[in-house]
């Protein structure tokens, strides 16, 4: 491809992950066409401290749990959801 367009994506962190990583969100710049399933690699590269928590976590996009094949779009509200403990 001649030129690869990218867009900024902020991934929110909560609870244990927020505490271990030491911030509220990780800012990424991702290529158009990036899927939810490809996020883990990008997060690990951007912030190694998040690596141990990726496998057990789910990804939420726009307030819903997302499937790995979902393609991310500019403006998506993305969050990393570690195992929950409510109730």
């Amino acid at each position: 491809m001649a030129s690869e367009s990218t867009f900024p994506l902020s991934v929110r962190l909560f609870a244990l992950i927020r505490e271990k990583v030491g911030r509220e969100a990780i800012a990424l710049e991702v290529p158009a066409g990036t899927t939810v399933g490809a996020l883990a690699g990008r997060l690990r590269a951007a912030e190694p401290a998040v690596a141990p928590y990726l496998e057990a976590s789910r990804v939420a996009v726009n307030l819903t749990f997302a499937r790995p094949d979902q393609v991310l779009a500019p403006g998506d509200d993305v969050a990393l959801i570690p195992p929950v403990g409510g109730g």
Partner: protein
Amino acid sequence: MTAHPAPLIIVDPTPIDLAAIHAFLADPAAGGEVVFTGTVRNQNEGRVVHALEFEAYPEMAVAQIAAIAAEMYARWPLRKVAMVHRLGRLPLGETVVVVGVSAGHRAEAFEACRYGIDTLKRDVPIWKREHFEGGEVWVTNHP
């Protein structure tokens, strides 16, 4: 599409008002109501617990609870559904969560209420930090 009464959904740090939830669930066509209440217990997995602290992704927690309530309405002939979760640091005995359901008959009320709390504990982005004798730890629900 059948119109259902809007569920009562609250996820915030204000104390839970059980009487208000019972009042909300009351319905002329409901003969039975089942209310599950979860409270802060004095021990967990052998640890002496002093308090629990709940954090949420609040917008998503409300959206997920709304989706669970919609599923409950779709699966059972219910009258009213209330799902309330408190946030912040809560001492022993405090009410953490209430799932209440009213229905024409009790079988549906029991099943739907059980489904509601089970699903909330699995899929709603709320996290629990346990303050116990000797430390603090994030505790997750068993699947």
